[in-house]
């Protein structure tokens, strides 16, 4: 096996070592190209990770629907009529639109995004108070710092419990004070705190300061009857959110006698749209990074080919002698290609090491995992990305090495040995 032929390798290293300075200069192109490729890939990975972190906890296929006021007169109703959803709407929608995976009805105390004062031992907090079903956790995941989220028993028994946000905790409790099991008062009703959660800073549909109580408790405590504030929906996998969004709206418009062209009566927010935009953005970014990196790498490898061409020209006589001594074209070609691969791979690995060092440094500056609001999170390349880059590099070096190799093979011994 020629791969383990010590002499072949010593031939290769001999020729490369003959002009160390030139070999190093040649390698510089590939070193820099590799650094650029890896840095670009690493950064776009970091950016992608960052976005993923931002969206962590929110189902990418989620949709929020709430009621507003009509903007068109219809069926004898005047414009400006306030629409009020009811609990049965959730049932109907869930029943008629099978694409829906989860539907969590929610009701809010006061008006939309309204503030209610929550009391505890003379301390107060202006919070949004929501009546929720436990399934809401499947649409927007709550990061619990302490305790638990609402559960089915809470709903069935209409327990007077609540889950509060971290900010609410800070306003109502002293630092380090145990909140679980304590009571807070909302509109004269006492609720026991069972959990504290940390809101997602970046994608937040609940507001900074919120209190969640079981939906059924909400109904009884605040007499909301079968009224419904808004619905958080997660659609099944493979289903397009806008399609479901239109279906729900159509259904609700018919039910509440809303003009079919009235776009303002029902409000909605499609989370997948933002998500898709970001995913597209990061994919394009990755693609562009790879594209730029690829061509930079190509330029570097072409530089190597160029130098090898010059070397072959310089070594015309030597190659001629070798041919006269019995070197077959195959041996000559193999040696030149091997030289190309050795330079490229060596240079590539140097560039790779430097780039990884850079990325590690950037990572160190930007902070550890879990930190939010950093421009790049874990900027590093993956093993497959490394392998692809590496294979690409070797492939390119073989292809490009063929040019000087074929030039070397075309040298006829008689021409090489002709006395000047």
């Amino acid at each position, binding site marked *: 096996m020629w791969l383990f032929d010590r002499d072949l390798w010593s031939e290769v290293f001999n020729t490369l070592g003959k002009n160390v300075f030139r070999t190093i200069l040649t390698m510089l192109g590939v070193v820099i190209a590799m650094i650029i490729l890896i840095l670009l890939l690493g950064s776009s990975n970091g950016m992608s990770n960052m976005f993923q972190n931002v969206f962590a906890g929110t189902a990418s296929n989620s949709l929020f629907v709430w009621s507003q006021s009509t903007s068109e007169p219809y069926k004898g109703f005047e414009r400006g009529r306030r629409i009020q959803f009811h609990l049965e709407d959730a049932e109907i929608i869930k029943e008629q639109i099978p694409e829906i995976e989860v539907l969590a009805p929610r009701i809010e105390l006061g008006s939309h995004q309204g503030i209610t004062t929550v009391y505890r031992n003379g301390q107060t907090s202006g919070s949004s108070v929501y009546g929720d079903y436990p399934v809401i956790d499947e649409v927007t995941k709550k990061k619990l710092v302490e305790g638990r989220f609402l559960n089915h028993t809470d709903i069935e028994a209409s327990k007077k419990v609540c889950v509060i946000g971290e900010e609410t905790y800070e306003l109502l409790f002293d630092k380090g004070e145990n909140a679980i099991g304590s009571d807070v008062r909302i509109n004269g009703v006492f609720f026991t705190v069972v959990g504290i959660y940390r809101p997602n800073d970046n994608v937040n549909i609940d507001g900074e300061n919120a209190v969640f109580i079981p939906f059924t408790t909400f109904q009884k405590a605040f007499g909301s009857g079968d009224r419904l504030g808004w619905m958080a929906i997660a659609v099944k996998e493979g289903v397009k959110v806008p399609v479901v969004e239109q279906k729900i709206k159509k259904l609700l418009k018919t039910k509440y006698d809303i003009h079919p062209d009235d776009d303002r009566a029902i409000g909605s927010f499609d989370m997948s749209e933002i998500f898709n935009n970001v995913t597209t953005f990061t994919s394009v970014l990755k693609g562009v990074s790879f594209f730029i990196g690829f061509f930079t790498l190509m330029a570097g490898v072409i530089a190597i080919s160029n130098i090898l061409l010059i070397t072959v020209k310089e070594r015309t006589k030597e190659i001629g002698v070798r041919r006269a001594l019995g070197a*077959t*074209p195959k041996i000559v070609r193999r040696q030149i290609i091997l030289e190309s691969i050795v330079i490229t791979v060596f240079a590539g690995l140097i560039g790779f090491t430097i780039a990884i060092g850079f990325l590690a440094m950037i990572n160190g500056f930007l902070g550890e995992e879990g930190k939010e609001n950093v421009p790049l999170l874990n900027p590093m390349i993956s093993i497959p990305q490394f392998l692809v880059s590496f294979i690409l590099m070797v492939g390119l070096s073989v292809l490009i090495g063929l040019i000087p190799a074929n030039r070397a093979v075309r040298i006829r011994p*008689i021409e090489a*040995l002709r006395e000047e």
Partner: protein
Amino acid sequence: MIEIKDLHKSYKMGSNSLHVLKGINFTVEDGELVAIMGSSGSGKSTLLNILGMLDGADSGEYTLDGVPIKNLSETKAAEYRNKFLGFVFQSFNLINYKSALENVALPLYYQKVPRKERQEKAMQYLDRVGLKPWANHLPSELSGGQKQRVAIARAMAAEPKVLLADEPTGALDSTTSYEVMDLIQKINDDGNTILVVTHEEDIAHMCKRIVHLKDGIIVEDKKIEQVRAGQYV
């Protein structure tokens, strides 16, 4: 050993072609030491190139050790060159970044002789040309005569059927030339067939037979009384 019949060769020089060899016929027996003489342009180098399979003939037959040499692929030619022929050039053509020993071992490498055996054999041949102490020196550290002796050792290391020497003394002063010829004669004494291309009368007379080329044909082919180079050294 060598049989050539009606060999023709011409080169295209622009629109007109230059007829260099115009029907060469000659035979070399085993163990002969032949000088091929002629002024420049007589076709002697072309003949040597064809004999060395570095160039092909236009027409005619060439048989080397019973093997017809015709329409060889580059790979086959390389194989035959390696197996049948040893080359000695006027300008030595040693590989300048390899030591004397590595240079001598090179044809053995192409014969795929194992490394250790190769080194031993190369050293043995280097010893035969009296350069064992210089084995690890680079060509640039050797004198002209020493370089040519390394080149001869390299040509002989592959144990070729025929040694082809193209002006082996062309770049050397007369004393060194005689030393080299002395070596060539000794190798011939061991029974090796050698062809020497030269334009120097004294060198030619150190062979056993002189073939004179003029304008692409053999004008004279005679056996001579060999002058031993040893007496001048």
